[in-house]
């Protein structure tokens, strides 16, 4: 029920966005850039209404070994917030520092680990190792740490 309502609302917002933000131009004979987004919005609305009406018809299927209540929302929000902060720090601090900070925060904050020496060594080694593998060996230009420039 809730899911159906949420999806229907999403569809309405989507249709409003499409109507207001996609210009109505089209090459001769073809439906133009608005056609598919419109169609999808309408389809989603129909599916949303159908889901809302069908109610809790299908009982929760037997979960394959997973925690049946679904993973904890708090863990989910924290993990995603960590990733967003990581991205911000990648830009400010560079790859190695940001990675080490992310790993330490995840281990201490999310997992509640307290073995500080192990954690520090693990985070530093993994951050530096990934930099060597991806940046130096494979040539993927990751954000460079400011202090690394002065070393070289």
């Amino acid at each position, binding site marked *: 029920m809730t*899911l159906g309502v949420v*999806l229907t609302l999403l569809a309405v917002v989507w249709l409003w*966005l499409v109507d207001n933000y*996609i*210009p109505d*131009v*089209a*090459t*001769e*004979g*073809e439906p*133009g*850039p608005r056609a*598919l*987004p419109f169609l*999808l*919005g309408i389809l*989603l609305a129909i*599916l*949303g209404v*159908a*889901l809302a009406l069908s109610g809790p*018809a*299908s*009982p929760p*299927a037997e979960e*394959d*070994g*997973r*925690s049946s209540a*679904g*993973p904890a*929302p708090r*863990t*989910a929000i924290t*993990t*995603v917030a*960590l*990733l*967003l902060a*990581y*991205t911000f720090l*990648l*830009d400010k601090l560079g790859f190695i520092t940001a*990675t080490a900070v*992310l*790993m330490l925060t*995840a*281990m201490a904050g*999310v*997992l509640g680990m307290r073995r500080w020496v192990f954690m520090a060594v693990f985070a530093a080694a*993994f*951050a530096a190792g*990934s930099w060597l593998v*991806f940046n130096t060996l*494979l040539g*993927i*230009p*990751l*954000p460079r740490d400011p202090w690394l420039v002065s070393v070289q």
Partner: protein
Amino acid sequence: MESVLQAFAAATQPGVLAATAAGAIAGLIVSAIPGLTFSMALILVMPFTFAMEPIPAIAMLFGVYSGGMTGGAVSAVLIGIPGTPSAAATVFDGHAMARKGEASVALGASVIASAFGGIFSLLVMVLLLEQVAAFAIRFGPAEIFALVLFGLSTICGLAEKSLLRGLTAGVLGLMVMTIGLDELDGVGRLTFGTVELQQGVHMLVAMIGLFAVPNVIEAFANHGHVRREIVTEEVRGVLPWRRLRGYWGLMTRASVIGTIIGAVPGGGGPIASFLAYDHARRFSSHPEGYGHGEIGGVVAPEAANNAVMGGALIPLLSLGIPADAATAIILGGLLIHGLEPGPLLFQTNLDIIYALYVTVMLSWVVILLAQVIGIRLFVKVLKVPAHLLGVCILVLCGIGAFAARNSLFDVYTMALFGFGGYLLQLARIPVAPVVLGLVLGPTLEQQYRTALILSEGSHRIFLESPFALTMFALTALFAGWQIVSTFRARRAASASEGVS
């Protein structure tokens, strides 16, 4: 013949061999760990391939594919939890064998069966691929549109028990893909004037978020709650050829099942392995042994789930249509290297296709060797806590999303898709159709519009092609059948409720 020899030379260069081996071993290890699926192994390996030449990149991806399908059996046998969903059917008898003290035999038998199934389906694929491609080369936009529509609708319908949820997932994936610059008319769609959104959502970035992040969240959430009992028997690397006497016929039949299921859109490893297990039990002379450590219950699902690969690659390489989530990810990987699967690939890049055949063969050699030599190592890997790996995977997610286009905006996008993936899980909406929508969306729309431009706006172009008509009819038939069976199941459920 000459090009085959060239392909062999290309695939056996040291760099390519190393990529194959690294991929196969990475696939074995990641999918051996419960909670980390084999789709995720494919996604995590992707950033490693960005900077490579096409052949080693493909070698690595396909190495992960073969290794990933095989590795799931390790934890199925030793812990009784499938390392990856395709190994779920292996648990019944594999784990029972381990409890009887035959863990080494079960592991050895599973790897032999895996290699057998994989190589069997590879041969079928080699025989059929070029014929399908030669047939498909005549396809115009109308036919391709009809074909993609059929593929997408079956996958959405089959992905989950709920048709509505499967379709919702497909529509959501298609919606995401419409964001960005519209190539035909050159206008931005829902870009709100930003440069970053002009390029659209990179399909790999979305996949990392949808597959990998929810996995990490789950590993973090289960931290401290899940206990695993590993069979303590000293595991040796053996290949029990003798024990398999009398089972080769079963393995061949299981491989046929796997190859066919693999080629059907929406099929995939889990379905194939359960069907093969069921077949093995039904046609066994002593079905009562199944579930109590019968070796046929290990080799049948393992041969079948590895045979899925060759089957699934037929529509992928010859038509550009992925049959399941794993092949959709592979398709993404090929596109990044400028290789667009489809009939044209056989004319422009035949060398790469031949090299791919050789690479897959070689990956089986690596897997057999790894199993014999390295099995004790795998047992150790199973003891590495999943939450600690989760921390490392977060970093790999960041690297992968960034490396796709060297853009931090993509890393933010990946994180948001990660939350989206979690919400989908919460709403019990399957992820596979979302990914297929992402991958197939652009083709679907472009072919439809190109067809209309060719026909000057007349929809008759879709009705004039017998092939397109057949595909539309099949789509309608399938949709009708799905709707009817959903209603029947519901009525049966409410009837049985009334009785009780």
